[in-house]
């Protein structure tokens, strides 16, 4: 990473995910590559989290906006392979999720995907006694769980 690309990464770290604003696009692990082509042009390569994720287009636009202050020309490319995985989220990102009330994905992904893991603790009270309410939640990346101790429902970011 050169000094200039480091600046780009810093700028990208200020671009929030539209659906989980506690995380930046860098936290989420969807920024795969940053290349400064010359002093005026930069190219950012993103890997979308989900095939049909409606946030993908918003993210590309937000990335462009964040970098246009500094570069005359911003190219945002999409790279599909290798597919995005929750393994690309940093531990720091998982901590931020927890602080936001979302249980982070537990463990590493193994293929074929046989299960999406389970939250290790309730993000509200820390109790380990939790149960799944529904496999699908408010966004494609989450499932709906409930804490048996404090009785609060919460989102679990599926391991996938």
């Amino acid at each position, binding site marked *: 990473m050169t000094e200039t690309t480091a600046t780009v990464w810093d700028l990208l770290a200020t671009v929030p995910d539209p659906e989980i604003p506690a995380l930046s696009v860098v936290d989420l692990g969807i920024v795969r590559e940053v290349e400064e082509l010359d002093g005026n042009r930069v190219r950012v390569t993103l890997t979308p989290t989900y095939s049909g994720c409606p946030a993908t287009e918003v993210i590309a636009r937000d990335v462009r906006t964040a970098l246009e202050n500094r570069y005359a020309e911003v190219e945002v490319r999409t790279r*599909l*392979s290798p*597919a995005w995985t929750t393994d690309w989220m940093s531990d720091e990102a998982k901590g931020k999720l927890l602080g936001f009330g979302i249980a982070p994905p537990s463990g590493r992904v193994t*293929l074929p*995907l*046989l299960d*999406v893991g389970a939250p290790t603790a309730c993000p509200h009270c820390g109790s380990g006694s939790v149960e799944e309410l529904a496999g*699908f939640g408010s966004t494609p990346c989450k499932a709906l769980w409930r804490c048996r101790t404090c009785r609060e429902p919460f989102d679990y970011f599926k391991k996938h």
Partner: protein
Amino acid sequence: MSATSDLSSAAGQQTLADGCLVLSHRLSEWMSKAPTMEEDIALGNIALDLLGQARGLLSHIGDQVGVSEDQLAYFRDPADFRNPLICELPNGDYGHTILRQLFVDCWLAQVWPVLAATAPDEVVRGVAEKAVKENAYHLRHSSAWVVRLGDGTDESRRRMVAALDALWPYRGELAVDGWYDRVESVLTEATLPLPARDAWTQRTSSDGWHTEHLGYLLAEMQSLARAHPGATW
């Protein structure tokens, strides 16, 4: 029985893209009407994944011939679609919808991993890699519901048996290698009867032949784009 290897061909990709697109639209018809809030959300999520998969493939197909994904989705007529016929069938009751989903999920569970590993084109491989994981989750959902309803109350079982009778003839386009084993293991767990593998099957859409239902589906799906060509928002 078709081989999964055919699916890397242009015709195979069109079948896959159109199947995902048409089924996505069917599932979206459940929005606000599913039996429970959780299922409303589940079917919406599954529809969205299928739409994303369809878009990935349609964009790629369009790139080869210089047209956009929207052109392919909104400005082709029924005879140009190559989706498996089962994808265009009306939803019926929830049992019917979820059994159809199981059949299609099992097809995709055989198809996506092959494409992810062997598709010559990088874009197709990328779409497939993503889809492998999404499909695994969809399959978990449809399997669980088929078991719950098949091995449920007298009424839920009656409806699942009726759905099985209605949908079994449409399996021909889906029954790639490994499909029967997957489906039969779920039907067995659901204590549902196993229909004969060699029973009669419907013809395919490979020559542009469709059921009467696709025209109505497309009329709704394409109406906005055709009324306001090139509209953006």
